[in-house]
């Protein structure tokens, strides 16, 4: 991680006020764009990334070399068509791919580490709105996001209602549940229990809290899949062996898979960023920001909304999407909602799904 980002970086010219009351000075937002901005700036589509995502939406990741995380959805002739739209994806603040985060250098010349202010989803969106200002985009044609990206889309719609004409929220929620917080706390504790974490001051050290971060990723990864999906993919099959070894190697295929996911993740992600971003998600509750009533958050909105859930997603289940839809109905907003069927749980939004493609295309067009 911390390879030189190849993205464009926007330096926010003003101090960024945060929900905590602190301010972030000289904040940087790294971003990628695809397509061409129309002269009247009317064709901009903002795609917001998820917890461990980044701005490499439809272009290769500079560290892993893998294709962009939503390349099947964004590109020329794709559902989000870069021949028509100017698509922006920005790394959220708190992350580690070029935007300001705990690994960034503080004004005193040292990495922030745990001195980085605790941020919220709304703070992430504040950073992105500053970027939109810098790009001269007053109103987005659409804002689109899955999972934590959907939270940002909802936060933008609730707090900057004039900034987006269409709001597409996939496999997401308007609040983090106790179960969501609980899983995140497991991940954070795994990182903080790693001796190499060293209270977050590991940037100058050769030892990084990779073991803790890998365990955090392994636990979280389970929540992104479905039981049926895991059973289908791995069952109880053993990895590279004929019989049980009566030991603690990764004997089952599912163990081997999780270990691979965990170690791969540590190569591209900063452990402190994982702490900060999961905390931001746990704080997320749009109703709380708006007098305890979710419908108030969207009162008077002129935007069109589309909410999509997946029937096997137990991380942000359909009930959470319905909760948002009911609030939007109560607010009189133009809203569509569909629960799509897919076997792969929460991660379904990233995978092949013809119906999702058609919904996204029809709504964003």
């Amino acid at each position, binding site marked *: 991680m911390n390879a030189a980002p190849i993205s464009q970086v926007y330096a926010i010219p003003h101090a960024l006020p945060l929900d905590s009351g602190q301010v972030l000075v000289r904040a940087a937002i790294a971003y990628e764009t695809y397509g061409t901005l129309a002269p009247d700036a009317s064709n901009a589509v903002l795609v917001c990334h998820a917890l461990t995502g980044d701005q490499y939406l439809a272009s290769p990741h500079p560290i892993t070399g893998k294709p962009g995380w939503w390349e099947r959805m964004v590109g020329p002739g794709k559902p989000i068509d870069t021949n028509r739209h100017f698509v922006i994806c920005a790394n959220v603040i708190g992350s580690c791919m070029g935007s300001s985060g705990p690994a960034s250098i503080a004004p005193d010349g040292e990495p922030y580490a745990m001195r980085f202010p605790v941020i919220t989803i709304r703070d992430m969106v504040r950073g992105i709105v500053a970027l939109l200002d810098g790009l001269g985009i007053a109103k987005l044609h659409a804002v689109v996001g899955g999972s934590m990206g959907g939270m940002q889309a909802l936060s933008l719609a609730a707090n900057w209602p004039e900034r987006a004409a269409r709001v597409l929220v996939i496999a997401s929620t308007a609040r983090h549940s106790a179960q969501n917080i609980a899983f995140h706390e497991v991940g954070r504790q795994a990182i903080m229990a790693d001796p190499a974490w060293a209270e977050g001051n590991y940037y100058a050290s050769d030892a990084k809290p990779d073991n803790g971060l890998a365990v955090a990723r392994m636990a979280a990864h389970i929540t992104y899949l479905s039981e049926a999906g895991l059973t289908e993919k791995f069952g109880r099959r053993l990895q590279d062996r004929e019989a049980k070894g009566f030991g603690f190697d990764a004997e089952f295929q599912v163990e081997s898979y999780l270990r691979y996911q965990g170690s791969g993740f540590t190569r591209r992600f900063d452990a402190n960023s994982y702490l900060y971003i999961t905390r931001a998600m746990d704080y997320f509750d749009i109703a709380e920001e708006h007098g305890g009533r979710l419908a108030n958050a969207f009162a008077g909105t002129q935007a069109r909304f589309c909410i999509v859930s997946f029937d096997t997603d137990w991380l942000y289940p359909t009930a959470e999407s319905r909760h948002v839809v009911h609030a939007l109905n109560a607010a009189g907003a*133009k809203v*569509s909602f*569909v629960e799509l069927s897919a076997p792969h749980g929460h991660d379904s939004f990233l995978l092949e799904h013809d119906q999702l493609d058609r919904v996204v295309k029809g*709504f964003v067009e």
Partner: protein
Amino acid sequence: MTPPTSQLRPDLAAIAAHVAPGSRVLDIGCGDGALMAELEAVSGCDARGMELDGALVERCVSRGLSVVQGDANLDLANYPDKAFDYAILSQTLQTATRPDLILDELLRVGRRAFVSFPNFAHWRTRAALMFGGRMPVTRALPVSWYETENIHHVTVEDFRELARMKGATIERAWFFANEKQIGAPAANWRAEFAVFELSR
């Protein structure tokens, strides 16, 4: 009489022709969105839909309509009072768990309501039951008793009585047989389908 409107089903065409232009409309059980599309394109309405079948919702959203996948038995409760100028329930009443409660909700969320349904007292239905001794399978009710979604069959007279019990005013009514509009006399015998416009 109702002027013919594009390719809509006759009951939907009757509704489309009598929704005031520019109205806010909720179409409950909107199917593939044919009526909504017509109301938006021709009458400049702000149309919203509710549909139980996810595949149909996907088709609506793909064509740019605002449709929520939901169950009218449960999800109407979330709309504020008189949120719409019209609430429309086309050929869905007879599938409701409690048609009487749905009618209450229609008249709560809409200033006016359109309700269309197949008339179980049509002479073909009566004849099928009387002479065949079996649950009717007719043009208007083409599905066998064991797989039909129509769990609360209703007649024109039943509906008039329900409206009266609910304190609803029948503003207008249209009746159809053989895909054509017919007059009101003896509609309970002659109509395959009925459309009522209600207020309360």
